[in-house]
């Protein structure tokens, strides 16, 4: 597959209360967007373990989206604040280890931001498309579990 003209595979980890609902709204509003992402629903960004992102890349994802409630909107009051610190570190670590930052999207998308979700998805898909397939990680040896 060539850079620029391939279909990236992107895993999205989203919280149940804001972004998942926002994605639902995008659907009910019939907002068209790139079909390259698959959503994994979690109760809260606080539940999203950095290892999920690592696993996704390990298993061959070309890009990852992590999205939840805006600061102060967290259904569980503080999960997104914890996530924000966690992913600030994960992101810079992965970049340091050679992951292209364009492959990682972190966003706050509220239940009312269907359009923002569409933009986040489309932008991410385009950025990752530009990066090309993530052969680097996918091609690392090792048996699957």
């Amino acid at each position, binding site marked *: 597959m060539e850079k620029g003209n391939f279909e990236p595979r992107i895993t999205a980890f989203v919280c149940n209360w804001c972004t998942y609902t926002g994605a639902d709204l995008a659907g009910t509003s019939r907002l068209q967007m790139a079909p390259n992402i698959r959503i994994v629903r979690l109760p809260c960004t606080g539940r999203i373990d950095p290892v999920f992102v*690592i696993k996704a890349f390990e298993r061959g994802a070309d890009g990852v989206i992590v999205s939840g409630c805006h600061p102060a909107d967290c259904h569980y009051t503080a999960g997104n*604040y914890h996530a924000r610190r966690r992913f*600030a*570190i994960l992101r*810079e670590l992965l970049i340091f280890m050679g992951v292209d930052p364009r492959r990682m999207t972190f966003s706050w998308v509220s239940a009312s931001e269907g359009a923002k979700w569409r933009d986040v998805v489309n932008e991410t898909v385009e950025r990752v498309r530009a990066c090309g397939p993530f052969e680097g990680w996918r091609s690392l040896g090792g048996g699957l*579990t």
Partner: protein
Amino acid sequence: MTELRELARKLLSDGQVKVVIGYEEGPRGVRPLFATDGAAADRLIFDERCVQNLATYLDRRRVHVARLGKPAIVAKPCDVKAVAGLLRETQLKREDVVIIGVRCGGVLADPKSLQRLGPDTMADRCRTCETREPGLVDYLVGPMPEAVRGQSGRDAKIAELDAMTPEERWSFWQKELSRCTRCQACRQVCPLCYCDRCMADKTEPQWIESSPHPRGILAWHLIRAIHLAGRCVDCGECERACPVSIPLGLITRKVAQVVAQRFQHHPTDDPSVPSPIGTWRSDDPQEFIL
């Protein structure tokens, strides 16, 4: 030296502690000493060759040490920060350990080299270390050393890596990590890797592939770095223990830089300061979030 030995003797003789964990002259350089009597106490030494972080022996899971009874520990500033970490994370009660803090002007990069301590012979981490005198201690020994400061090759290397393209960084690390045999020495030596069952050994589900192939190796070192974020005291033991000399210090240092710059948190010997992971501020930087 005599100051340290006399103190150790006293602590043992009047029964304040049952063992003094410190350093002694060994056949192949300085090694840990577990002094349980006055005679042994007289073998205690401390100098710039004492690189080991003995705090790792305070983990109650190290039964062979725990069995000896209440310990006193000879600790450099970075070692004391590790003790503080154990206190912070309820692995240890303050009353269960006597801390003999030693003033420290840095240790040698290569303790066997027998060089004099100087800006270039000093361990890289010590060149950027601010702390000469540890807090939290029960006793404080040794003269106040003048602050020898040197250029950190480590920070220079990090800057160099940051300047590379992702692809270049990726191949750099793949080359370095390719030597990893997953011997887990980095984990065993780390005073803050104390879990009864490390997640790396968890199989259902499996978090990290256990065999030493690139995928599992990368995952291990990433997760290790994440788990030490804001907790690492930069004692350099992981890098020292690594049999295939992977520059692990680069990773821990990089994460420490991120934590310091984003959350204004620096390793501290104050156990009451919470670790930056597990706390938050409503105004934490979020420039990377759409």
